[in-house]
């Protein structure tokens, strides 16, 4: 297996607050990795660093072996074309109808004609279980679960090689969460993509991942195949996956 994405010693601080303190993580091609960790441990910062939305202070990020840590402009756009991302709140463009949201990356990023992009958008919406009439609604008219589905359709619209999921099940009821989990598994398999998710929902993490990594104190403190997480022997992981208030992890009340 070759590494699709590799993080080497990635560090990021905001003012005096060190968020990432040397993250090392390898994501193999066509694998599904989940990063778990409490709120404010830098899960989102990790993903945003890979996407180039944030710049790491130190360390290297490789995508397909290419150093993408400091690239800009058209080189960044070229790398971004193989990414898709599902945002926590959906992050749908509320000025555009649903189909244009899904087709956005095709029309703006890749110059596909609007009529053709609309057909592709309607196909992708069908893949996440949404009918054609939804395509012409505005995102504000949709429920939270439907917005997540549209976000998922947008993430897979351009058949990306890498898909990121930011808290895909947060804020959904357990049934909708499971539906989204199933959709994630099927869509990732469908396009043969590499997936990286961040979540603190252990049910979701176990279901959608091949490998789990736990982020704590700005470092990956444990990583391994999903099946081994119950025998990690790591007290931090034990506390987190069982959701105990008592343990080595002290929740910072003040950010």
């Amino acid at each position, binding site marked *: 297996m070759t590494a699709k994405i590799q993080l080497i010693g990635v560090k990021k601080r905001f003012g005096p607050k060190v968020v990432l303190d040397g993250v090392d993580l390898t994501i193999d091609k066509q694998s599904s990795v989940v990063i778990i960790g409490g709120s404010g441990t830098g899960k989102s910062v990790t993903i*945003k660093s890979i*996407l180039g939305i944030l710049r790491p202070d130190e360390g290297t990020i490789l995508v397909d072996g290419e150093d993408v840590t400091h690239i800009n402009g058209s080189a960044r756009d070229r790398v971004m074309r193989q990414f*898709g991302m599902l945002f926590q*709140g959906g*992050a749908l*463009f509320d000025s555009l109808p649903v189909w244009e949201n899904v087709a*956005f990356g095709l029309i*703006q990023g*890749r110059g596909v004609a609007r009529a053709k992009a609309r057909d592709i958008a309607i196909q992708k919406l069908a893949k996440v279980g949404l009918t054609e009439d939804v395509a012409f609604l505005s995102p504000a008219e949709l429920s939270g679960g439907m917005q997540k589905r549209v976000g998922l359709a947008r993430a897979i619209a351009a058949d990306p090689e890498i898909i990121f999921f930011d808290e895909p099940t947060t804020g959904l009821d357990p049934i909708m969460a499971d539906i989204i989990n199933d959709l994630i598994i099927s869509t990732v398999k469908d396009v043969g993509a590499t997936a990286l998710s961040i979540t603190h929902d252990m049910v979701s993490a176990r279901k959608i991942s091949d490998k789990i990594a736990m982020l704590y104190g700005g470092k990956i403190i444990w990583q391994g195949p999903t099946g081994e997480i119950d025998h990690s022997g790591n007290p931090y992981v034990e506390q987190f996956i069982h959701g105990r208030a008592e343990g080595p992890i002290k929740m910072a009340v003040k950010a």
Partner: protein
Amino acid sequence: MNPFASIGSATVTVLAHIGRLAQFTGQALAGVVSPPIYTRLILGQMVRIGFYSLPVVGLTAFFTGGVLALQIYLGGNRFGAEAIVPQVVVLGITRELGPVIAGLMIAGRVAAAIAAEIGTMKVTEQIDALTTLATNPIKYLVVPRIVAAVISMPILTAIGDSIGVMGGYVVSVYSLDFNGTSYLKNTVDFAHQDDITSGLIKAAVFGFVVALMGCYNGFNSKGGAQGVGNATTAAVVTSSILILAADYVLTALLFHK
């Protein structure tokens, strides 16, 4: 806290703001001249920024022209110079009040709307989403608004100038007993090309300032609803101040003899 330390930290904050604004302006200007150019978005923004601002600019211009005529009449009356009303109205409107009033109205209407829209997009991660869809947010959001404002503002001001002169005409003819024909003749004879073009150049600069400050404050909004509210206020306040400051500088430059 040590007073020197607070002066120092305030200075650093201000300089950091200026630096970020300069960097943002540079990115926006680079975006204007490099492809892709989103023509559809520019036209859409011209409708929102320019066309929908016509009623408010027209109304304020009308009343400004009217009150200007009245004040000059009353002031001129003190030394028997009432007849100068049409000349001073056209000069005041085209050189100064037309662009400045339109600029301030646009600052209230458009800078606020831009900052609120982009600020909301920022806090709901829509701007990050643009990046993940291989679209540069500066080019997609900022450039169309700036280009549209720079094109729309001179047009709005030209219309506002005409309505302002008409406001002066209406007040002079119907309330101050001026002869309508000679009022118009005096207006046309007195106004120079330079009076009008200098006002339109100012208008273009004000349009740039308004769109830039709306976008900059929106992009830098933090937190939730309160952050967006703060960004909106900051956009209106900073663009209004910058318009008046730029007005002075431009007047000094354009009429430098």
